[in-house]
């Protein structure tokens, strides 16, 4: 059967669907590379060029709690020592049961989060069935690997991926390196310039049996600790009303934490630290 493929990028030619002529699989990023190569940016052309200076996102973290998994990120983007943006988003829902938290070069990272969302939706529509959580993590690792030429130019994207595994009935999370290596974490993980401090904080406070509220407290605490030590990580900005992004993912789906709850948890924590002479306040 020859059906003119109007979805193909090569509209000028009389392209038809069939093996070898045009992409016929279920992956959006592969469709992009095969039929729309002009939109899938080829970083290898810039090999050897000076590394670029672009805004970078900083601390994101993920950990398990009693209902599933929570992912949080601060809002600051920096370009060297300068603030590039105070309110960028680093945590994105990729579908109803998974999310991606990005650290690294903001531009490619946000684009990767966007393509990842379309990728999962595209697969689900073409195949009539959503990918398993493992499949989603694997797909993301391939996308990060494809970004390796850009990473060599200083545009590394090192996300966290987390979600609720509907088959196994519990939350799961993965960290990645620039080569696409993926590593599943059992309890908590953090990525970005402040990640060392966030991880140290979670090491002390993490409790996998925590309620949603306790999980929110742990997340706010870890982000505040990271912002305290790392100049690239933004703290909670009460003056401008800029709060971190915190998303819970459990069996019924994902839910973003209310700013009023974050504010409350933050103020309680500040009050506690102020009265607790020494410790974190010093």
């Amino acid at each position, binding site marked *: *059967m*020859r059906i003119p493929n109007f979805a193909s990028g090569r509209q000028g030619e009389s392209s038809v669907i069939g093996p070898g002529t045009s992409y016929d699989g279920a992956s959006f990023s592969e469709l992009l590379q095969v039929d729309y190569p002009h939109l899938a940016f080829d970083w290898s052309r810039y090999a050897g060029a000076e590394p670029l200076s672009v805004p970078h996102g900083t601390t994101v973290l993920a950990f398990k709690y009693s209902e599933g998994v929570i992912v949080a990120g601060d809002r600051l983007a920096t370009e060297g020592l300068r603030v590039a943006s105070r309110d960028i988003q680093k945590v994105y829902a990729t579908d109803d049961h998974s999310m991606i938290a990005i650290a690294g070069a903001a531009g490619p990272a946000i684009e990767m989060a966007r393509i990842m969302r379309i990728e999962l939706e595209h697969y689900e529509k073409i195949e009539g069935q959503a990918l398993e959580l493992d499949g989603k993590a694997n797909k993301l690792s391939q996308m990060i690997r494809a970004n390796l030429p850009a990473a060599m130019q200083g545009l590394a994207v090192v996300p966290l991926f987390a979600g609720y595994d509907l088959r196994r009935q519990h939350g799961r999370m993965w960290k990645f390196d620039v080569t696409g290596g993926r590593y599943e974490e059992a309890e908590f993980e953090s990525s970005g310039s402040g990640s060392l401090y966030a991880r140290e904080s979670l090491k002390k406070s993490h409790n996998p049996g925590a309620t949603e509220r306790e999980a929110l407290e742990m997340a706010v605490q870890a982000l505040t600790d990271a912002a305290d030590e790392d100049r690239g990580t933004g703290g909670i900005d009460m003056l401008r009303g800029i709060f971190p992004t915190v998303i819970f993912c459990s069996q019924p789906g994902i839910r973003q934490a209310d700013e009023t709850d974050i504010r409350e948890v933050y103020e309680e924590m500040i009050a506690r630290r102020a009265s607790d002479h020494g410790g974190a306040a010093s």
Partner: protein
Amino acid sequence: MSMPFYVSPEQVMQDKAEYARKGIGRGKSSITVEYDSGIAVMAENQSSLSKIGEIYDRIAFAGVGKFSEFDQLRKIGVRYADMKGYQYSRDDVRARALANSYSQAIGDVFTRELKPLEVEVIVAEVGDPELSGHEDNEIYRIQFDGSISDHRGFCVIGGSEEELASYLQSNFQQNAPLGEVLRMGQAALQRAADGQGSVPPENLEVCLLEKARNGRKFRRLSTDELRGHLSS
């Protein structure tokens, strides 16, 4: 020496049309109906191979006729929509443009190829009261020869199209609740299923485009949910 025989273009087109009509006529029908808070797409379907699918946030697809052909068209539609949404914005993905592209592609096959596509498809888009210029539902029907038409209220494709359309004509009411519309659809499809006493919920494929949902408006009803709506 044998003479090359001559067949007039009219005859060729007529034969192709008859062939396509026959193919489509053998299959079961599919109904698309507006209700008070969205669009319902229904088909009699005993198999697990879907005749109705999600194209994009507000757009659904339904096909009748030869499965492999309309499913291929559905996939092309998904690629088209996802690509357009990626290149421009999610709001730029609209049913009319997609329906036009289907019309072109199907018409192209009808005129150029020996064998026409034995399919009819529906592209339905649910309106969004929040978006200016996008408030109304849109339903497009594309036939085997690429002819395209738009419909208000309801649209039938497939086998007993004329009979079902006249049934819906006399029973359709604007802004009816979902349960009522689904019962009407079931009754209509029942009329088309000749020789059978009834079309039970497990033999119906029903998908909705729900205005009130956030983001992706498309939802497939489970048999239990459908049963609940039919008896409500």
